[in-house]
């Protein structure tokens, strides 16, 4: 196993958001975390990324515990998080954003840049454009690319389809498939459940801060409860 979250309890102030959550991802696997708004999906990713301290429980990565590490230290270990807000640098160019993504591994920067431009030729075209002037879809591409620049082992994406047109989402997920095929471990949270289940090997259903269900994505996609609640199929 590559990443494992054990018996996690986390929240903000006195409000508990995650209760006793255990999730794991194996090398090369793609994991989906689905569930309604407010279920705690974002909090889960933020805890793994080191942005939120858990009240109880632990996060394990390879053979170490990530307890107490700051966000930048987690990123340097190869566990890269792409938040829903993307957190790009709007007055810096696409190229500069990408260069900064390679901060933890400057030597691999050129190679990764070639790879990223191959994956998203549009970014190569716009490489001198300011990130703040890109469209929503392009910004998402940039956010994912920036995360790839450091050569991560695990990529975590929080609701990557948010605010994007269907065609753009389809292309994004095609690219994510390619990344998965290349051996990258993915953890994706999504509201667009069908997409997430199609992309991933296994999935966890998070409701009200607890894991209600888990299993192979293909099986969950066929599960009548899931179909009714999340896929709108009766």
């Amino acid at each position, binding site marked *: 196993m590559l990443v494992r979250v054990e018996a996690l309890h986390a929240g903000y102030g006195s409000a508990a958001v995650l209760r006793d959550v255990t999730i794991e991802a194996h090398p090369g696997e793609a994991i989906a975390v689905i569930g309604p708004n407010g279920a705690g999906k974002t909090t889960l990713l933020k805890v793994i990324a080191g942005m939120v301290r858990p009240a109880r429980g632990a996060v394990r990565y390879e053979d170490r515990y990530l307890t107490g590490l700051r966000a*930048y230290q987690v*990123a340097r270990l190869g566990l890269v998080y792409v*938040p829903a807000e993307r*957190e790009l640098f*709007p007055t810096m160019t696409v190229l*500069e954003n990408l260069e*900064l993504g390679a901060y933890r591994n400057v030597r691999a920067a050129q190679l990764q840049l070639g790879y990223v431009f191959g994956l998203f030729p549009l970014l190569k075209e716009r490489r001198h454009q300011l990130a703040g002037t890109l469209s929503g879809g392009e910004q998402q591409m940039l956010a994912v690319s920036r995360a790839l620049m450091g050569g991560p082992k695990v990529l975590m994406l929080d609701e990557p389809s948010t605010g994007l047109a269907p065609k753009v989402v389809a292309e994004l997920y095609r690219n994510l498939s390619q990344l998965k095929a290349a051996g990258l471990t993915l953890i994706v949270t999504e509201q667009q459940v069908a997409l997430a289940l199609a992309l991933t090997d296994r999935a966890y259903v998070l409701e009200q801060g607890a894991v209600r269900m888990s299993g192979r994505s293909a099986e969950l996609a066929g599960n009548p409860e899931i179909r009714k609640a999340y896929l709108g199929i009766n």
Partner: protein
Amino acid sequence: MSAILFDGVVQGLQLSLLAVGITLIYGLGGVLNLAHGQFAVVGGVAAALLLQLGFGPVAAALGGIASAGILGLAVDRTLLIPAYRYRGEERLLLGLILTLGFSFIVDGTLNWKFPEFSLSFQLKVPLIEVGGIAMRTASLAASLIALVVFAGLFAFLKLTLAGKAIRSIIENEVGAELCGIDPARTRTFIVCLAAMMAGVAGVTQGLFSSLGTEMGPEFTILGLLVAVVGGVRSINGTLAAGILLGIVNAFASHYVGAYVAYIILLSFAMATILVRPAGLLARFT
């Protein structure tokens, strides 16, 4: 007319040197440094002491600048620790009070130890003709130094990865951390750099005018005004604001009395803050 303009630009560049430091410390540390003017004074005092010890002017100046940098390092590593434990407005307020208190301590100490102090460099050639206009060599030298420092700063920020990392932290600290950038280490470096720039301002003040130990608060306030008018997160804005306010001050001082000029300057700054709180060149708020 052009002499006044030139004067304004020279003074403006000095203000910008101070203001850029305040902008950098605010952008990276989230703290408004009310002791910034004291860095300039300490730099000047150290330079003067070195001059007294027999060092040449260039060595003394560099020594003064280095001293300012060391003080900045000490402040970041000790005084501001309580402030860095918090975030956002709490950190801002606490940092404000801590640096204010420190500013008093330095001011009080310097005025007590060096009551009659004044730093002033004498140049061998007092006047130079450039393009038919006679200028004071000192003013020219001071502005050239300031321009060189700014050019260096811009080059560093624009071209090097470390500089880009600094810009990225100012722009979006969360995003920077996600790229693996350590904000705390970078912040210490920047406070040191900002303090050294203030040291340059202090030394050049001694070049084209004279530096007294009581000038700390005045430097801080002017630097603060320029930084806020230029936008506390924009370095380009700060440079522009400094030159602009320097020119406004020069013209105002020339045509009306000193007090009224100061009032005009302050009112202009206040008005700018009220009309464009995000700063002169703000684009993405």
